């Protein structure tokens, strides 16, 4: 049975985000011949729509109103509601982002249905949509079906593969109304940028956890990242370490922090609580350095060293420097 899908897309510097492309891909796989509509809001939305068609979208609803650039849920909700009216979706997909976290439950509420958050797996099981999401801080996975329609789901970044781009594909576009009122007023915005490389973009992430024992431990972690290369490696931290004030919260990797999927993830003195693994389990290779051979992190790691990081990191830094 065909399924109409509505993807709430997001823009980054005038282009659809990579997660938007992934969602459109997932949508087109689940549509089974139904329409795959995407909404794009904000400056450059209309132009950006073209990039969604090769990714699997068949319709694009856009508004170039720059008032949408900053997410205000009241305004976005109104716009998505208009698109919803036009697309009559059976499934609404959003990213598990600032936008999706707030918009998905609100949209679902207004249509007497439910939103499933932070899904990592979407499947059509004999015509029934089943979504799977990590629960209990990632200790378990739970699969849900929807008793109501339409289904609303937010999806974890990088959990869905984009489809093979359909060269030259195009689709309909339609204009959404300009932004209306919002009850919450945005007063200010502060970007906290890690020096140099961004955590999500880094091909290598070196993270430290509570096992470092003190904020000083991060000096060695930073040294290791520097040895790998300032242009290649960024430094992250577990929530426990951030909560203790040992490292800035902007560098937190985990369920409530950033989700990273680098080629190489080096976890130093991190026990590997599921809540942390939720933020790094998509990494291609994980290396664990931990005193405790029973630490959970070794279950997800490909390589491990059992030992005190204070003894392991200095020679490791030296060996990496020598190898470069």
């Amino acid at each position, binding site marked *: 049975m065909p399924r109409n899908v509505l993807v709430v897309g997001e823009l980054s510097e005038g282009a659809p985000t990579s997660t938007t492309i992934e969602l459109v891909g997932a949508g087109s796989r689940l549509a089974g011949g139904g329409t795959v509509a995407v909404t794009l809001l904000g400056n450059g939305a209309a132009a950006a729509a073209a990039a969604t068609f090769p990714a699997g979208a068949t319709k694009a609803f856009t508004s170039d109103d720059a008032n949408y650039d900053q997410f205000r849920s009241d305004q976005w909700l109104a716009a998505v509601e208009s698109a919803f009216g036009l697309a009559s979706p059976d499934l609404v997909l959003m990213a598990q982002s600032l936008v999706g976290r707030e918009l998905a439950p609100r949209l679902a509420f207004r249509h007497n249905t439910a939103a499933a958050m932070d899904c990592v797996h979407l499947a059509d099981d004999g015509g029934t949509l089943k979504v799977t999401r990590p629960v209990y801080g990632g200790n378990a996975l739970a699969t849900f079906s*929807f008793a109501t329609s339409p289904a609303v789901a937010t999806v974890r970044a990088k959990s869905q593969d984009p489809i093979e781009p359909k060269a030259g594909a195009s689709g309909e576009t339609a204009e959404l109304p300009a932004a209306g009122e919002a009850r919450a007023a945005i*007063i200010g915005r502060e970007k906290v940028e890690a020096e140099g490389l961004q955590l999500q973009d880094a091909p290598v992430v070196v993270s430290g956890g509570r096992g470092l024992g003190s904020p000083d431990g991060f000096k060695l972690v930073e040294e290791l990242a520097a040895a790998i290369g300032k242009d290649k490696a960024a430094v992250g931290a577990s929530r426990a370490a951030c909560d203790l004030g040992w490292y800035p919260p902007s560098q937190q990797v985990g369920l409530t922090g950033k989700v990273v999927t680098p080629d190489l993830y080096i976890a130093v003195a991190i026990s590997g609580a599921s809540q942390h693994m939720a933020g790094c389990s998509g990494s291609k290779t994980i290396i664990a350095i931990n005193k405790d051979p029973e630490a959970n992190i070794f279950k997800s790691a490909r390589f491990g060293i059992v030992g005190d990081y204070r003894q392991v990191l200095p020679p490791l830094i030296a060996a990496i420097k020598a190898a470069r």
Partner: protein
Amino acid sequence: MHLVVCAKQIPDPETPPSAFKIDPQKNEVIPAPGIAPVLSQFDGIAAEAALRIKEKAGDTKVTVISMGAESAQQAIKQVLAMGADEGVLLNDPAFEKGDPHTTATVLAAAIKKLGHVDAVFCGRQAADWDWGEVGILIAEHMNWPVAIIAKGVELQDGKFRVQRVLEDGFQTVDVPMPSVITVSNEFGEPRYPKLQQIMQAARKTVTSWKSGDLGVDAGAVGAAGARLKLERLYIPEKEGKAEIMDAETPADQAKQLVEKLKAAKIL
């Protein structure tokens, strides 16, 4: 002012992985022996946020409500010990095994029953099911604005000035009252209660409301009213054990690791 804190009691998220078990027949977590349930960490922080407002504003009542089993009294007492004034337990078998929608329905009904409320503070998500929806849905039920994932909340000219955590920084928003604010761990640790407050909290009686008291239709909440049906709950298979470097000294292990990484073309 009257502030409401929503608190949930959950299985201890710090249960060692080896003790975390699931009953595949019932699709339920089997309580780990000797490990008591705890107040969801984010809810403790939400209570902290409400109490800081109370301290600054003065003349403010903080009510903590929790939907859950009888044992959730413990979570309520914990927030009372931190300085909340009253506690309400929403305990009814009809409320069990619901979804975020049914939970929010029950909580919103209770908030309405409390009378005048200026703000509701929730954790950004409950650390068991990690939905992160209930606060937002309460706001929808009440038709109030919501600010989620706050790392700072202050009362300013009759509005809440909320610092929110974004992926790449922070955002400051003004939210009018009444509203819902969900609080994140970046806010800071909940306070350690003074012993006198612990004693006072122990003596306080917690009000208990059932579906009848709230006027909610038992068929619209809990498992009966859930819009999300749990099909399967399971522990994912881990890839197994890492390849542990077995050289004698840490220095040799480091070299061994670098060799392996080179061989696998990772470095």
